[in-house]
C-alpha cells in the first residue's frame, strides 16, 4: 500500500496514468459497439451539464434548481440555426454558429437572471431558480413555429443540395466521408473533445483566483466581503459561467441526440441534475463525471433488469449515497482509504491524507 502510494505521488506516474486513460478513451470507440459509444457520449453530455451546476452549487454554494433551463435553451440555440442554415451556403459553419449561440445566449440569460436572483440567498434563491423551467416550458410551446413545441425539432434528415445539384436528406452530425468514421464514433469524438476542453477550463477556474473566491463566498459571505471579495459579484459570475456550461451541454445534447422539445426543459429533469450532482460529488470535478455517469447509466441498467423500477432504484441509489458517502461517489477512494487505515490501527497517518471533502476548496485558499 505504501509502495503504491509513493508511486502514485510521483508526477511522472500521474501523467502516465492520465495518458493511459486518455489513450483508452481515444481508442475505445474504434473497437466498442455503437451503443457503448452512444452511452459514453451521453455521459459526457450530462457530465458537462452537471459540471456547470457544480460550479454554482458545489463550488460557490448557491442552490440552483433551474439548471435544465439553460441546457434546454442551449439546445434550442444550437438546433434552430443549424436547421435554418445547414445545407445552405455556409454548410458546416452553421454548426459553429449553433455552438457559439448555445454558449452566448444562455450566458446572457443567466447573467440577467443572476443580477436579480442572487440578491437572495439559500432557499429564496432556490425558489427563484425553480421559476426558470416552469416558465421555460410554456414559452417554448408558445413559440412552437421555431421550437416545434411539444412535438419538438430534429436535425436528422434535413434537406441539402449536393455537388451534383440534387437535393438529399442529410444529418449535420453524421460523420464526414474524409474521417472514415461511423456516425457514433464521429459524435463521440466531437462531444469528447468539447467536453474535455470544458472540463479543462473548469479545472483551472476552480483552482485559480476565481475558484478561491468562490470557495470563500461559499464558506462565509461576511468573511469574503471583509477580504475585499464581493459575494454578489462572484455569485453572479458563478451563475453566469454555470449558465454557459449549461448552454454548452445543450449543444452537446443536440450532437448526441439530434432532437429537442419543450419537454427537455421540464422541471423534473432539473431535479435529476441536482441529484446527479449530489450523488456524483458536489464541489468535485471527478464528481461531475460520476454524476453524468449516474444520470445516464442508472436508467439504462434498470431498463435491462426491471424497467418498471427506474424511480425506485434511483431513490435507493440516492439514499445509499447520502447515508454512506455524504461527499458523493467522488469521495469513495478517500472513505475507503480512511477505513483501511482505521482497520490497521491508525498507523501511517500523514496530515495530507486527512483532507476532508468538505474543505477541499478552502484548502486552496492557503496558498
Amino acid at each position, binding site marked *: 500500500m505504501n509502495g503504491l502510494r509513493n508511486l502514485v505521488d510521483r508526477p511522472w506516474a500521474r501523467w502516465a*496514468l492520465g495518458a493511459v486513460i486518455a489513450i483508452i478513451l481515444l481508442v475505445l470507440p474504434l473497437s466498442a459497439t455503437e451503443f457503448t459509444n*452512444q452511452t459514453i457520449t451521453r455521459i459526457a453530455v450530462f457530465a458537462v451539464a452537471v459540471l456547470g451546476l457544480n460550479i454554482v452549487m458545489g463550488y460557490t454554494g448557491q442552490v440552483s434548481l433551474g439548471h435544465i433551463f439553460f441546457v434546454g435553451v442551449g439546445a434550442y440555440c444550437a438546433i434552430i440555426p443549424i436547421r435554418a442554415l445547414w445545407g445552405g451556403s455556409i454548410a458546416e459553419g452553421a454548426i459553429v454558429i449553433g455552438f457559439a449561440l448555445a454558449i452566448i445566449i444562455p450566458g446572457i440569460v443567466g447573467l440577467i437572471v443572476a443580477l436579480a436572483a442572487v440578491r437572495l440567498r439559500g432557499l429564496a434563491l432556490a425558489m427563484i431558480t425553480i421559476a426558470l423551467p416552469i416558465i421555460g*416550458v410554456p414559452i417554448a410551446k408558445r413559440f412552437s413555429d421555431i421550437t416545434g413545441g*411539444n412535438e419538438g425539432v430534429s436535425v*436528422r434528415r434535413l434537406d441539402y443540395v449536393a455537388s451534383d445539384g440534387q437535393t438529399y436528406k442529410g444529418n449535420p452530425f453524421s460523420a464526414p466521408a474524409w474521417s472514415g468514421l461511423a456516425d457514433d464514433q464521429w459524435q463521440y469524438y466531437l462531444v469528447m473533445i468539447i467536453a474535455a476542453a470544458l472540463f479543462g477550463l473548469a479545472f483551472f477556474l476552480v483552482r485559480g483566483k476565481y475558484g478561491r473566491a468562490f470557495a470563500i463566498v461559499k464558506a462565509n459571505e461576511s468573511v469574503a466581503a471583509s477580504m475585499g471579495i464581493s459575494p454578489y459579484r462572484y455569485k453572479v459570475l458563478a451563475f453566469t459561467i454555470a449558465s454557459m456550461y449549461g448552454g454548452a451541454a445543450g449543444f452537446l445534447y443536440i450532437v448526441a441526440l439530434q432532437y429537442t422539445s419543450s419537454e427537455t426543459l421540464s422541471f423534473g429533469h432539473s431535479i435529476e441534475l441536482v441529484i446527479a450532482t449530489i450523488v456524483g460529488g458536489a464541489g468535485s470535478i*471527478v464528481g461531475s463525471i460520476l454524476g453524468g455517469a449516474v444520470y445516464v447509466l442508472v*436508467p439504462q441498467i434498470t431498463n435491462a433488469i426491471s424497467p418498471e423500477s427506474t424511480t425506485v432504484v434511483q431513490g435507493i441509489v440516492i439514499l445509499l449515497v447520502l447515508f454512506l458517502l455524504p461527499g458523493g461517489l467522488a469521495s469513495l477512494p478517500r472513505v475507503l482509504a480512511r477505513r483501511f487505515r482505521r482497520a490497521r490501527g491508525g498507523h501511517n497517518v500523514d496530515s495530507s491524507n486527512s483532507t476532508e471533502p468538505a474543505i477541499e476548496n478552502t484548502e486552496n485558499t*492557503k496558498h
Partner: protein
Amino acid sequence: MITTATGRRMLAFAASAGVVALAITGCGRAEPPAGGNGGGNGGGAAEASPGITDDTLTLGITTPLTGATAGPGNCTADGAIAYFGVRNAEGGIEFGDGKTRTIEIKTYDDEYNPEKSVTNFQQMVSDEVFAGALGLGTPTNRAWRDAAAEEGFPQVLVMTGDPVFSSREDGYLDLGLVPSYQQEGGAFGEALVADGQPHKVAVLFQNDDYGKGYTQGFKDAIEGSDDIEIVKELSYEPTASSLEGQITELQATGADVLFHAVSVTPLAIADLQKVAALGWKPILFLPSNTASPGGILTPAGVTADTFTGVYAAGFAQAAAAPPFAESEAGKAYFAAIEQYVTGHEQDGKAFPHCVWSWTGAQILEEAFKNMEEPTRESFYEALTSISGLETDFTFGPIDTTVEGSPAVQVVELQKFNGNGYANVQVVG
C-alpha cells in the same frame, strides 16, 4: 502538502474516468457476427433482419413505465404482453414464411422523457429488437422517429394521436394506432351540430398538440353552423396543479357545453368535481383517454345525472363497462391480463390503453401472419396492407391501407349512462 493533495485529486480524477470507461467497455456487447441472424437455413430467402430468428421475434416497447404517466404507460405494454402471452402458450404464431415463432417483448422505461426514449431506441438497436411498437406519448415518440428512419427500424402502432406517424412519409416505417385527436374532436362537433339546437361552448384545452388537435377537430366540424358558438377558450400547461380558475371562468360565461380537452388524469378528476361543485350542469365532452368510468368518472363522483350529459369519443369498448366483462372476448382478456402481467398491480380496466394495446397486438399478429420474409420491410409491407380485420374490441374493422390514417379509424360518439358508455349519434 498542497502539491500532494492536488496530485491525489488529479489521480482520483484519472482513475475514476478510467474505471467508468472500463466498466462501460465491460458492459459493451460484441458485434453480432455478419449474417448470423438466425435465418441462415432459409435457402435463398432474404437475409433476416435483426431481432427475428426461426422461432422468435423480439418486439420492443419504449413507454413511460414510471413517473406521472406510468398508469397508462404500463397499460400500453400490458395488453400486448397478455395477448402474446396467450399466443406463445399456444405454441406461437405461424408467420407468412411458414415458420412458427413466439413473440418476445422487451419493455423500456422512458419516464415520458424524450432524451430517455432516444436512449431506449439506441438500446433496442443494441439489443437486436426487430421493431418498436405501441409506445405512448407524442414527444417521446417524435424524439426517435427520424433516428428510426435512418436505421430502417419500424416504429409502429404508436399510441399518440399525432397524425405525423400515419403520414406514410418516404423512408419512414411508421404507423399510428389510435385515431387522431382531430377525429375525436370532430366526432363530437358533428354530433353537436346534428342536434340542431343552439349551443354555447366553453373550451378548455391542454396547450400542446393534444389539446390543440382536439380543439381544431371540433372547430372544423362546427364550422358553418350558426347555432353553435364558442364563447370562451382557455388553455393550461400539463404541469399545472389545478385548473379551478379556468373552470370558474368558463362557468361564468353561461355556456351549456364544456369541451374538456384535458389529458392529465388528476386534473380531469378535479375539474369534474369543480364543475359539479359550482352547480354547473353542462353537456360535457371528454377525450377517450380521460373518459374511463373506473379511472376518471367514478373517482370524481360523477353519476348519470351529475351533468346534462357526459360524452366521449371512443373507438374501442371500455373494459370497465359491465357488458365487457361478460363477453367471451372480455373474459379471455381479463384472464390473460391476470395470468401474464406481473410485477405491478394491474386490473386491465383502470386505463383504456390496456385494451388498445391488446388491439394493437391483434393487428401485429395479422401482420406477422402475412409477412413473407423475415425482414423489417416485409413486416411493414404486411402491416400497411391490412383491411377489414375484425378485432375483439374496436367499433369497426381495421384498415391500414388508407394513406394519412392510423390503423384504427372508426370513431363513435358515446354517452355515459352511469355504468359505462353507450354509442349515440346525436347529442341531447
